[in-house]
């Protein structure tokens, strides 16, 4: 266990975190983090998509419905999206979804959007660590244990 993995508050709680990575930037960033042997928490499960614009708000809500404790969406800096405006759309969609999450009581603090470039291996590891800490502090997804939220 590394330092980062030891949760600060509850000893037992290990959040499961889903990270959507854009093929062209943050996924390469994750690669770089790996090649550079940077450590980041094992709680993070990476799912590669072709663009942050591919991430339908439903994917995020579905992940939460199934019991994910946190969902991170990562993409290229605004202006760098390989499909011109996919990340602009992602940003708008996530703002809207955040509102909905607050309304229905899951809370928008369980999701986050970050821009991470292909060259930013260190940033990738940092963001993963920081977000994992943040979700650990928030505690488990309130849907866990309910019929939707799985175990």
């Amino acid at each position, binding site marked *: 266990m590394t330092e980062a993995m030891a949760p600060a508050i509850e000893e037992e709680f290990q959040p499961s975190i889903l990270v959507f990575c854009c093929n062209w930037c943050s996924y390469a960033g994750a690669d770089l983090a790996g090649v550079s042997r940077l450590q980041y928490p094992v709680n993070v499960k990476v799912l590669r998509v072709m663009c942050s614009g591919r991430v*339908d*708000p*439903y*994917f995020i*809500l*579905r992940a*939460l*419905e199934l019991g994910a404790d946190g969902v991170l969406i990562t993409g290229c800096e605004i202006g760098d999206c390989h499909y*011109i*405006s996919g990340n*602009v759309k992602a940003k*708008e969609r996530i*703002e*809207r979804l955040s*509102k*909905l999450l*607050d*309304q*229905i*009581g*899951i809370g928008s603090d369980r999701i986050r959007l970050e821009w991470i470039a292909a060259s930013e291996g260190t940033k990738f590891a940092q963001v993963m660590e920081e977000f994992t800490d943040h979700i650990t502090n928030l505690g488990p997804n*309130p*849907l866990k244990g*309910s*019929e*939707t*939220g799985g175990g």
Partner: protein
Amino acid sequence: MDKENVKRLISDMGAHDCVECGKCTTVCPVTRFNPEFAPRLVVVKALAGEEMDLSKDSDIWICNTCEICNNMCPYEVDYSGFIRGMRGEASREGHEPDCSQGGLLHAMMRIMANSDLPQKRLDWITDELKLADKGDVFLFVGCLPQLDAIFEGRNLDLVETARSAVRIMNRMGIEPVVSPIEKCCGHDLNWAGDEKNFIKLMNHNVQVIKDSGAKTVVFPCPECMRTFDLDYQDFLGDFDFEMTHISEFLARAIEEGKLEFPENISISTTFHDSCRLGRHLGLYDEPRKVLTEIPSVELVELEKNRDAATCCGVSGFMSCNSTSKVMQMEKMQDAKRTEADVLVTPCAKCRIHLDCSTRDETPVDNDLINIPIMDFTVLVDMALRGKLQIPDAQDKEARMEDEKPE
């Protein structure tokens, strides 16, 4: 597929009475644009005991459950009831509809059904609105706040319908109860065949109403009204509280002289009979009565009105496809042809869909469809306040210019 269940559905729908006249297929708006689909053939297949395809793009999912066919059938074959039952079968086998918005709305409903998270569903309440914790009249707000969040950026302000309803009630000396723990009525899940989650939502909502002690529940939404009045009571037996759609409520208030309209600009309206309000609930006269009682408002009928009205093309946020689009284009053109100033709809979802259809590239010239859409309750409230106004129509060209990426 459980053969016994299907047999029961066939006999419940009255398929054995079908004389294969084909009227249902003639009026079905889906058949008109998608010749591969025909309600009569589904009935015939069911009668012949043929195995039905339950997968997501099959006949059972493309039907809009608009009930024009039920309505036209001389033998009252309950086609939409059969479809709903078949969807239940499909859902038990793990099939899902092709949801619009990727299924976001259905997921939200399932989450509500399976948890009691503290919701923030009352943020729309402003200081001027007088509400009560307990009282005779309950205002069932439904998913208006959530829909506003999901469709933000479209500037629909759907929850204004709830504000308008409260303002009108306050004017009548009523302080309605609205609940922070109300949940979605489950209409969409019910029509998607997800009976398990639907029942959870039903039990919760009925308890909320009972606990409030209300004698009357007023619904601004035709779907919530249908779901309570027909589906909930189907499961739970008759309720001892009264259920009324806002159009009935307002028609009665006007009749009893409880609402007086001040001077307004004159506007001409045309009315969209949403399928839930019209064919499902039979409420055709009430909204018309209200509109025509407003002195400065004129009502011009659509070519296809009352029980012949076509629906908005998407029901229960399922199967939004090219057929939906053509239906929406027809509706908007029909509305524009009336030369009315606004198209009035009683249903928030119809408004979402019709608004959406005029947004992106349309197969039809903008001039043929650019008529503003207004919510029924909001229009009445504006008229009561002497603030009637014609909203701007969707200016597609200007908007597309705005949204071009730099």
